[in-house]
Structure formats: structure tokens, C-alpha cells
């Protein structure tokens, strides 16, 4: 149902056809450079730091997908912790079934995790596609709170609260475990980033933003709003599933306690603070997710305060989120708008329009 009126085509032509490429031209070198850096780090860092590096990689898969969903497409999801859990448990079940046959089982288990969480993401996404604002948040919150209880219902398979331990082969050759895991996690992360960057650069990215900014206009321009919303959800779910699988691999186990509601909220914090809709922001967010709890733990280790231990990171994340939201003058919209100005070089060169008063998406 594309609109062929002359005005519409004129609008489309005004936007430079290779917008993303102009900015991300250097993206071609970005990934190999990052890969080289990570590789170097895994040889230089002590084992615990390497493990933390691996964790950052695992988180990065999730934050990248979530920042696309919430930042570029404007859908607020509080349920991505549950999607990670889906990936993690699938990985665990697949790996335990295939254990001992060689390193390739990891790839198969990870693929299974991605497939299952994509399917779950599609189901949730279909339900969510027509929801907005607090209704969407409420639905995804329900998903995050309810999904752990599934492990209790089918406790034959999932072993309810104790969870499952995962049979993993030792790394090939004499590579230390942490280094091997860091390679795997970052391989996943960099592949995810590459795929997402390609997606965003093209029509999909434009559609995402168009729907976020003005649904009615997007519809008039021939974009299928529902399909875009669902696709965004599915893509981010796939990323979360991969992240969850890598997580499970790092922990060598899965349990409901590893995927609490707080995890979904942490992901939200990471994405909001990192910079909504920006893939580099996802990197910052992933770093934050590892650095902040580590920082909090170093504090609580010094004071002997067992009650502080799990809770200080929560408090810090919460405070940081509130402060950032209050400080940003336009709230979420301004945090994502900064991204828009950066990715459209023609707009960046024009004088900035005064702060729009009517930010709410017109329906």
C-alpha cells in the first residue's frame, strides 16, 4: 500500500539514501578493530578480569537488541530478563542432551537458544505490537514476573528452584577457560552488533524510527506499523536469547534466581544510560552492568555488611536511573533524539529546532 503521490516521493528523496553509511562508513573497520582489541585483552588480563570481559560480551548481545527495541522503536520492554532465561534454559537443555560430542555442540545449543527465544519473542511481540506505553510495560513486566514460575510448574524438566547445571566440554588445546569463554562471548557479541548495524542502516532502521516518531505518518508512508513492531521485538528477543545462552555458559548453570525481575530492570537502566538507540550506547550499558556491581562489591567487601552485598548494586542502579531521567530535559525522547541528530548528518548541520512541546507520539 505504498503511496505514490508526488509529495510523498519528494519527502523520501530528501533523506539521503545512504544516511547510515555516511556515519557508519567507518563501521567497516570498527568490528575487526574491536575483535583485535578483545583478543589482545584476553591475553593480557588476569583470569578474573577476563571473566568479567566475557560477561560484558554476553550482556552486550542483550543490550544491543534492547536498545534497538526501546531506543529506535520506542517500545519499552521490561521482560527481556525472561527472554534471556528462555535462551539460557534452552541452551542448558540442549547442551546437556548433546554433551561430550565436541565443541560444535556449543554452536548448536546456542542456535537452539536463539530459535526458541525468537519464537517466544514472536509470541510476546505479537501481543505487544498493538500496545503502547504503560500497557506494553505492564505486559512485559508480567512476563518477567511470571516466567520464573514456569520452572516450578514443569519441575521435572526444569528442576524448579535448584535449576540445572550444564555439561560443558573443556576448551580446546591448552587455552584457559576464561579466555575461551571470552572469545565465545565476544564472537557472539560482535556478530550480533554487525548484524544489527546492517539492519539498522537499511530500510528496517528507517521504519523503526519512523514508527517511533509518528505512527500515523509512518502508516501513510506505507509502513506496516504492526509488522515493524513485531520484527523489532523478535530481533531483540533473538539477541536476548543469545545473551542468555552465553550467560548460562559462563555460570555453567541456570536457575530462576539468576533471572529475577531486577535483571530486566538493570537492562533497562543500562540501555537508558548508555544512550537509547545507539549501538555504542549498548556497549556502555554492558560495561555498566558489569562495572557497577563490581564496584559495589568492592565496597561491601571492605565493610563486613552481608545485607548490603546483593542490594547495593540495586540501589545504585535505581538512583542512577532516576537521576538520569530527571536530568534529561525531554526524558526518554530527548535521550533518543540525540541519536537521531547524530545519524542524520544533514539534520545535524541545520540549526537545531527548539525543544518540541508535543513529544507524545500522535496516534
Amino acid at each position, binding site marked *: 500500500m505504498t503511496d505514490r503521490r508526488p509529495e510523498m516521493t519528494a519527502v523520501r528523496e530528501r533523506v539521503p539514501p545512504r544516511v547510515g553509511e555516511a556515519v557508519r562508513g567507518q563501521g567497516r573497520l570498527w568490528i575487526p578493530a574491536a575483535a583485535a582489541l578483545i583478543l589482545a585483552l584476553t591475553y593480557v588480563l588476569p583470569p578474573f578480569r577476563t571473566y568479567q570481559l566475557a560477561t560484558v560480551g554476553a550482556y552486550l548481545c542483550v543490550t544491543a537488541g534492547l536498545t534497538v527495541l526501546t531506543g529506535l522503536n520506542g517500545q519499552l520492554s521490561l521482560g527481556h530478563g525472561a527472554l534471556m532465561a528462555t535462551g539460557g534454559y534452552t541452551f542448558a537443555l540442549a547442551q546437556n542432551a548433546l554433551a561430550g560430542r565436541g565443541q560444535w555442540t556449543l554452536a548448536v545449543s546456542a542456535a537452539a537458544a536463539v530459535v526458541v527465544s525468537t519464537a517466544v519473542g514472536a509470541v510476546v511481540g505479537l501481543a505487544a505490537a498493538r500496545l503502547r506505553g504503560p500497557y506494553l*510495560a505492564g505486559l512485559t513486566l508480567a512476563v518477567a514476573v*511470571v516466567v520464573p514460575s514456569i520452572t516450578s510448574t514443569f519441575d521435572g524438566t526444569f528442576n524448579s528452584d535448584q535449576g540445572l547445571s550444564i555439561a560443558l566440554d573443556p576448551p580446546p588445546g591448552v587455552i584457559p577457560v576464561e579466555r575461551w569463554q571470552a572469545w565465545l562471548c565476544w564472537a557472539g557479541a560482535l556478530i550480533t552488533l554487525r548484524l544489527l548495524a546492517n539492519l539498522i542502516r537499511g530500510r528496517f532502521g528507517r521504519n523503526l524510527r519512523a514508527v517511533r516518531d509518528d505512527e500515523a505518518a509512518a502508516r501513510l508512508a506505507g509502513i506496516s506499523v504492526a509488522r515493524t513492531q513485531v520484527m523489532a521485538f523478535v530481533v531483540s528477543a533473538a539477541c536476548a536469547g543469545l545473551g542468555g545462552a552465553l550467560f548460562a555458559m559462563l555460570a555453567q548453570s541456570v536457575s530462576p534466581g539468576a533471572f*529475577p525481575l531486577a535483571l530486566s530492570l538493570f537492562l533497562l537502566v543500562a540501555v537508558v544510560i548508555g544512550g537509547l538507540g545507539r549501538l555504542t550506547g549498548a556497549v556502555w550499558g554492558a560495561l555498566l552492568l558489569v562495572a557497577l556491581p563490581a564496584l559495589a562489591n568492592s565496597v561491601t567487601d571492605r565493610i563486613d555488611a552481608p*545485607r548490603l552485598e546483593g542490594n547495593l548494586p540495586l540501589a545504585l542502579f535505581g538512583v542512577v536511573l532516576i537521576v538520569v531521567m530527571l536530568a534529561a530535559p525531554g*526524558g526518554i525522547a530527548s535521550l533518543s533524539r540525540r541519536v537521531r541528530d547524530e545519524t542524520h548528518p544533514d539534520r545535524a548541520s541545520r540549526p537545531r529546532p527548539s525543544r518540541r512541546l508535543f513529544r*507524545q507520539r500522535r496516534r
Partner: protein
Amino acid sequence: MDRFVFLTFDGLSRGAVYAAFALALVLIWRAARIVNFAQGAMAVATAYAGYSVVSATGSYWLGCAVALAAGLVLGAAVERLVMRFVDHSSPLNQVVVALGLVLVIQAVLGMIYGNEYRPAAAPVSREAFTVGGVALLSRFDLFVFGSVAAVVGLLLLLFTRTEVGLRMRAAAFAPDVSRLLGVNVGGMLTLGWALAAAVGSLAGMLVLPTELGLHPNAMDLVFVSSFTAAVVGGLDSPVGAVAGGLLVGLLLSYVSGYLGATVAPMAVLILLVVVLLGRPGGLFAKSTARTA
């Protein structure tokens, strides 16, 4: 048949709590056009305060009163010190800030009281009376019904018969016009939050004796169930909130009773999905508006 009757009464009792909590959500929705995602965490916090008083003094009633008072204060404080400063251009901003509050509140509770489950005793017996061999209600159930009915009645009187209630309604329906008429709209908003939080606190004190115990996350599922109840009834409708709450309570009770307790949360999620897809304005809605 006996089981069905028992489950029905049990469900209505649970439902009354969800009704109260959903009412709190609707109150804030009507006043400020936002869903207070921190409502559950706020209720837990005041319940901790309440139960501290209970263990210190031995009196549940005093503890309840303290919890309600703490709710009033906490609701007013959250509105005045945090929510007021959030950018209003998009409803998502306040949702995100509320979630930040959830993190902070749950963390602080964990830091002060620890993360183990603490006992939350009921003030009166939870044993069901039997009539003709059929287990019906317990004293506690009656207490729950009575409290919720009293609160709903009081709120009704407040809003329809008092000057304050008139001001609050005017401030919610037409803030600018109300200001021109001399209504302190900001103050009415704070009052709305305070009342809603107090109602949430009451719901918390009523539901915790039936749960595993007092814990920073104890109200998470209650929030989800009450949110579902509010959506079922239509976020704009206080009557709908009560009806929705009872419906959700009954549903959970039957599912728990016949299919197993662990399936109950799934039932809530399915109900939520069904209502959001089918009649997002709630079962009592006149139109089918899908957006906030």
C-alpha cells in the same frame, strides 16, 4: 462441590485485596494519567514498617495504622519529591522513573531488613468456618472483606460528598480550568498519590499474611495481578477496578485449586494478554481505545 465453594470464597477474599490495590492504581491513573509501577514496592515498604510495629508492640491494629500512615507520607513524598520533576511529555518517562524507585525501595528494604522471608502473621484466625460440613470463610476473610468495603465506601464518600473530593476530581479532569477557579491542583495531585499509596498499604497488610511472608519482592506478583485487574475493569473506572479485582481473585483461586498453585501466575498473564488484545479499554469500556 465443596471444593468449589471453598475456592470461591477464598478467591473473593483474595480478589478483595486485588480490588483495593487496583483501586489505588486507578486513583493515580485518573489523577495523573500514569500507572504507578512503584505501587507494589511502596506497599511492601510500608508493610515492613507496619510489621516492625507489630513485633514491637504485639498489636496488629497499631501496625496497620502505622502502615497506612506511612503510606500517606510515602505517597505524598514520591509525588512531591520525584514524580513532579519528571518530564511530562511522554508517559513512559514516569514509568521508567517509577521502576527506578522500585529498585531503590527494594534495595533499601533488603539492606535494612535482609532478604529472608519474615513472618507476617494475620491478626485473626485464618481457619475457615464450616457450615454444614462445608468450609467457607475464615475470620480473616471477613476481616479482609470488611476492611476493603470500608475503604471503598470511604473513598466513595470522599469523592462524591466532600469539597476536597470535588476539588480532586476537578483537578484530575481539568487542571488548568480548576486552577483558574482557585483549586490547588498540585496539592490535590499530592493528596491523590497519598491516598492511593495508603490504599495500597492496606492491601499489602491484608495480603501478606496469605503469602510466603514479608520480602522485598513479595508484592511483585500482586502488582501484576492488580494491574491485570485494573486493565480488565478499565483504568478509568473505579467500579471496574473492584469488579476486575474480584474476577482475578476468583480466577487465581480456581486455577490454583484445580490445576496447581504454580500455574496460577501463568493464568494471570494469559488473562492480561487476552484482555489487552480483545478489549484494552476494559470489560466496561464503551470504546476500544488501545493506547494509554
